[in-house]
């Protein structure tokens, strides 16, 4: 008994000391330094990744940090672990600390310009990281694009289920509306396809018109949302969950029976417009706009409606308009996500937007955390990776993910990073050791 508790205590000491050491070492490393360090890692992988992977007996580079190997070929785990250590963990942890000083000065200098400059520099570096990393395998490229689309969809669902506290199930339906509308637009206008005939516009225009098709998809989804919202927001409670679930099934069977859209066979031959850069830009745009919205006083009205509708209306908040706006807004982004998805996988059928999609998106929202932009990003990316890792299990994946959802609901009902505010500007800020920074934080 005594021995065990001693062991536990020493372990705790080691943990607290390790945590303290980590905090002391990395407290002053700004985001910019992490981006530089990971850029180095990615470049390192570009040049020595393949030979190193061969030397470690991996055959090819571990595409997703080894998560796919874990279940598929467990014998390769030690090799993959070494690979990750050499390519990512060590260079990033050492280099980030080394360049922290310069990066801090650079970040401080960037702060003297308008915020947009800092934002563009950071996002540019982030994209450089991402594109170099995705360059090395098509699989990475695909997973990265799908994960970013998942961020858009998760974040938009969080607006309704998290910020507004209603329970909506119709997001796959909105995605379907967006996907079909956007696909229809691009295929009819820019693709020579046997069903719709020759393109109506020069295909060269296509990539430039792609944003229009996505916005169109978003608007169609928002119009669909109006159909759900009008009956369900007259009252509170479970009505939205029921009506929105019904809506999802209606949309699915609608597309199954519409021969114009290929019926159950679906719609294919979408042009390849949704490149990594395009998806990246739309993802950043959605995060920026949604985050702007939820941080504004108009957006805070969502929280007030959730936490006390009566008080909200007594404080001049137009609760019905607030709910409608948020719901349509969320549907718009789900539609945009659907449109992007259609052009990434370049084939959609009604089954893509069924109950499985719903389970996946809900799991991403609740895993990541309600009422939190950061949470949605964590949830979407995390579950995308877990989904890929579980791919070898095939159909059992759909047993594991719902079980995870249940466990999250029991043990952490609000999710991993719930109820936080995401402030991009503070993310970009230099982390100097002087007291100025402390004052700034207190102010």
């Amino acid at each position, binding site marked *: 008994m005594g021995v065990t508790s001693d062991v536990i205590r020493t372990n705790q000491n080691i943990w607290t000391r390790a945590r303290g050491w980590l905090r002391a070492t990395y407290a002053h490393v700004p985001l910019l330094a992490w981006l530089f360090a990971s850029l180095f890692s990615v470049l390192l992988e570009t040049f020595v990744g393949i030979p190193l992977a061969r030397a470690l007996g991996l055959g090819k580079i571990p595409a997703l940090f080894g998560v796919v190997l874990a279940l598929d070929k467990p014998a390769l785990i030690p090799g993959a672990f070494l690979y990750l250590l050499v390519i990512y963990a060590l260079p990033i942890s050492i280099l980030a600390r080394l360049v922290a000083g310069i990066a801090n000065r650079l970040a401080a200098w960037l702060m003297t310009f308008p915020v947009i400059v800092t934002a563009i520099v950071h996002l540019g570096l982030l994209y450089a990281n991402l594109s170099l990393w995705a360059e090395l395998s098509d699989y990475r490229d695909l997973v990265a694009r799908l994960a970013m689309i998942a961020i858009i969809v998760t974040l938009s669902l969080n607006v309704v289920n998290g910020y507004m506290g209603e329970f909506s199930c119709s997001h796959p339906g909105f995605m379907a509306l967006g996907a079909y509308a956007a696909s229809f637009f691009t295929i009819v206008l820019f693709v020579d396809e046997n069903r719709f005939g020759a393109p109506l516009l020069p295909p060269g225009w296509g990539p430039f018109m792609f944003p229009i098709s996505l916005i169109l998809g978003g608007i169609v989804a928002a119009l669909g949302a109006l159909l759900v919202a009008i009956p369900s927001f007259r009252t509170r409670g479970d009505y939205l969950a029921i009506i929105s679930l019904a809506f999802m099934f209606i949309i699915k069977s609608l597309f199954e029976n519409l021969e114009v859209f290929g019926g159950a066979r679906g719609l294919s031959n979408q042009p390849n417009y949704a490149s990594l850069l395009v998806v990246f830009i739309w993802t950043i745009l959605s995060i920026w706009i949604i985050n*702007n919205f939820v941080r504004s006083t*108009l957006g*805070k009205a969502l*929280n007030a409606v959730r936490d006390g509708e009566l008080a*909200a209306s007594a*404080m*001049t*908040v137009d609760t019905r308009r607030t709910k409608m706006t948020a719901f349509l807004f969320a549907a718009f982004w789900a539609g945009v996500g659907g449109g992007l998805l259609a052009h990434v996988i370049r084939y959609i059928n009604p089954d893509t937007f069924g109950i499985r999609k719903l389970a996946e998106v809900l799991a991403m929202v609740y895993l990541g955390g309600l009422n939190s932009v950061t949470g949605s990003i964590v949830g979407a990316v995390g579950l995308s990776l877990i989904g890929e890792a579980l791919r070898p299990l095939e159909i059992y994946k759909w047993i594991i993910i719902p079980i995870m959802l249940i466990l999250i609901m029991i043990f952490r009902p609000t999710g991993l990073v719930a109820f936080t505010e995401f402030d991009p500007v503070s993310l970009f800020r230099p982390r100097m050791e002087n007291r100025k920074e402390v004052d700034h934080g207190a102010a």
Partner: protein
Amino acid sequence: MALLEVRNMTHYFGGLRAVHDYNLAVEPGQVRGLIGPNGAGKTTVFNLITGIYTPTEGEIILDGESIKGLAPNVIASRGLGRTFQNLRLWRHMTVLEHVKLARYSKIKYGLPGAFFGTPARVREEAAIERVALELLDLVSIGHLANQIVSNLPYGAQRRVELARALSTEPKVLFLDEPTAGMNPEELVQMMDIIRHVHAEIGMAIFLIEHRMKVVMDLCQVIQTLVFGEVIAEGTPDEIRSNPAVIDAYLGKEVVI
């Protein structure tokens, strides 16, 4: 004409007559009280005037315009602010956010501002924040601005409610038992704050109270409601000596 006028208001919940032939005339700057035993229908009167229920019969006129049947948020933005008897704060929000949000109907930047963070929004949010901080200082909780409300002690939560109601810029402020559940010390502080707020802003106040000390000290005119009907209306002294009130409400002995 009075600032807020209620004429012959009657309300039924199904077959139950909750309020009968209720009349009220609040003059600008006046402090009025509404007292009555439990279940007399005081909060119902509040809910009827502020639009949570629509009265079965009668007229409600604010500043010369009928507000009967309007949505609560419209009535609130016309100038009827209120607090609630059981605190109705938004548990995940900070104190400052509460007071800022009560200016919802005055926000002009609209959805484009909310989505794209336009300069107009930045300016307006800053202006709202200034006003909100002033109001928090007015009720002496400026230092708690960034606290989540559910972490605050009860007395402070009551003040948040008050500041939030003030933030709607009411012409008439409805206070539903502002001192409910307070200890004697908090009670005295709350009364001081109400007096202070009234002196600073000068809006009319209409309050429900259980504690005679509070009503008698604060109010110029008091109504007594019993079973949904006003049985007496007058100055504190008149109410105190009114035999019907003593009978129905204070009991046989004069307490104060």
